[in-house]
């Protein structure tokens, strides 16, 4: 229903070079080009420091690229915008607001009247199964519950793009699987373009339409693996494991390079 609202993402020759305090140049991201379709779920995987978070932060508008540009639909990305939501690894809930006011924060900024925004926020809380926790303070929630609130908060403003930076990285394995299922559910209900950063190959295969494997620093795209499996996906099938193996093969090459680099020094 709301699929037409989600936007494509276009990353054009995007590169990032940091100058550290000690005057060193760090090539975080080599020129990278990537197109993501509206409503597509794309995951970035790669060794630590391969620039996948940098890429995400540039698309969010937090970080300026050194060269190149990124577009949401046909608009240049120059600054953070409510149209591109974000889910952070450490939840980033506002501790001075209760659960429902966290979820409706963006709606308030959009000028949605109080009663309406409470109804919308409640709907999204229901989708993540937390309707009974609406009036709780955020410090009363577990890590998994906090991240579900953060997901509800990101979807509630109906952004056309949602960026997720290792959102389940701090959670235990079982909670993580549960949240992956919930994320798929809410994404299927409210199709948004999703750019997702993770270290977990299994998570990437379970969630994505396409997996972008990045090289070791300086990061660039090594290969893109489309996942042609219907949801819900079963971890235990041969097909699933074949995909995992393919991603691991690509990653292992990069890990070996990183290792060589470190032992050379």
């Amino acid at each position: 229903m709301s699929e037409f609202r989600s936007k494509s993402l276009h990353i054009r020759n995007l590169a990032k070079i940091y100058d550290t305090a000690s005057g060193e140049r760090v090539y975080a991201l080599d020129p990278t080009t990537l197109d993501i379709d509206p409503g597509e779920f794309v995951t970035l995987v790669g060794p630590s420091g391969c620039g996948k978070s940098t890429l995400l932060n540039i698309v969010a508008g937090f970080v300026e690229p050194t060269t190149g540009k990124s577009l949401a639909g046909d608009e240049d990305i120059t600054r953070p915008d409510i149209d591109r939501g974000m889910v952070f690894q450490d939840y980033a809930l506002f501790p001075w607001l209760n659960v429902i006011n966290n979820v409706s924060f963006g709606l308030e900024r959009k000028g949605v009247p109080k009663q309406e925004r409470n109804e919308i926020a409640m709907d999204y809380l229901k989708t993540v199964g937390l309707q009974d926790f609406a009036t709780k303070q955020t410090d009363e929630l577990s890590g998994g519950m906090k991240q579900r609130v953060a997901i509800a908060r990101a979807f509630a403003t109906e952004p056309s793009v949602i960026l997720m930076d290792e959102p389940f990285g701090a959670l235990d394995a079982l909670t993580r699987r549960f949240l992956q299922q919930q994320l798929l559910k809410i994404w299927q209900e409210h199709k948004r373009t999703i750019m997702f950063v993770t270290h977990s190959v299994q998570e990437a295969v379970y969630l994505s339409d396409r997996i972008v494997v990045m090289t070791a620093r300086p990061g660039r795209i090594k290969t893109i693996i489309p996942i042609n499996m219907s949801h819900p996906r079963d971890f235990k099938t041969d097909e699933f494991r074949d995909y995992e193996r393919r991603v691991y093969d690509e990653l292992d090459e990069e890990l070996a390079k990183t290792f060589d680099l470190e032992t050379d020094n």
Partner: protein
Amino acid sequence: MFRVLQKLFAVLPYLYAATVIVIVWQLAVVLTGAHESLLPPPLDTAETFVSVLLSGELFLHIGMSLGRVLAAWVLGAAVAIPLGLAIGRFPLFERLVDPIIELFRPISPLAWIPLAILWFGIGESGKIFVIFIATFFPTILNTVMGVKGVDPVLIRAGQVLGCRDEPAIFRKIILPAALPSIVVGLRISFGTGWAAIIAAELVAAQSGLGYLIADGMEILRADLVLVGMVAIGIIGVSFDSVFRAIHRRYGWGGT
């Protein structure tokens, strides 16, 4: 029932402290055999306390002192909080203002008394000025700390949720995130202000707990001095616990 017990337990440490103080005090009187005008026994002091209380004199002094501290504290907050917010948020402003503040900070409020008298005379404003100095620094330091301590990821979260410019980020993220620290600053500064009341009222005051104490000394009535001290202690502790309660209620977690 349980709640009543809980409240009782909360008062217990103070009762214990009071008991220890009275015992040590009584022992000091007995062991040193001090003259009554120098160190009256606890019971005599309690009698004086009750009589000053019943005559309404004590309330007058407390009221005057509280009025001065409150005025100075509000004034201090009105200057320190906006200044602290700006210092915490704008690094350039911090570099301009912070060294000046650091230079003034080690100077005790007592050191300002001569200037306060020269500038403001012996009226109310001089006293309020001295207490203002005492309340200013804890408030500003905690405000700066609160603003600088805001998790950058909360600011980013605010930005992707529609806080497009600095005023919006400031109002919707920085201010509420820094509020608990600001409240702590206000609590501490009320304490330092209240502690400075004696110094402020030692000079040419006609009322207030500081006056009561100074006057007691001059007419050799140590019991009045002690009554003044006890009143300062009780009021100080009472206000501190009120602030703590406010903080627990509105400080979203932490103590």
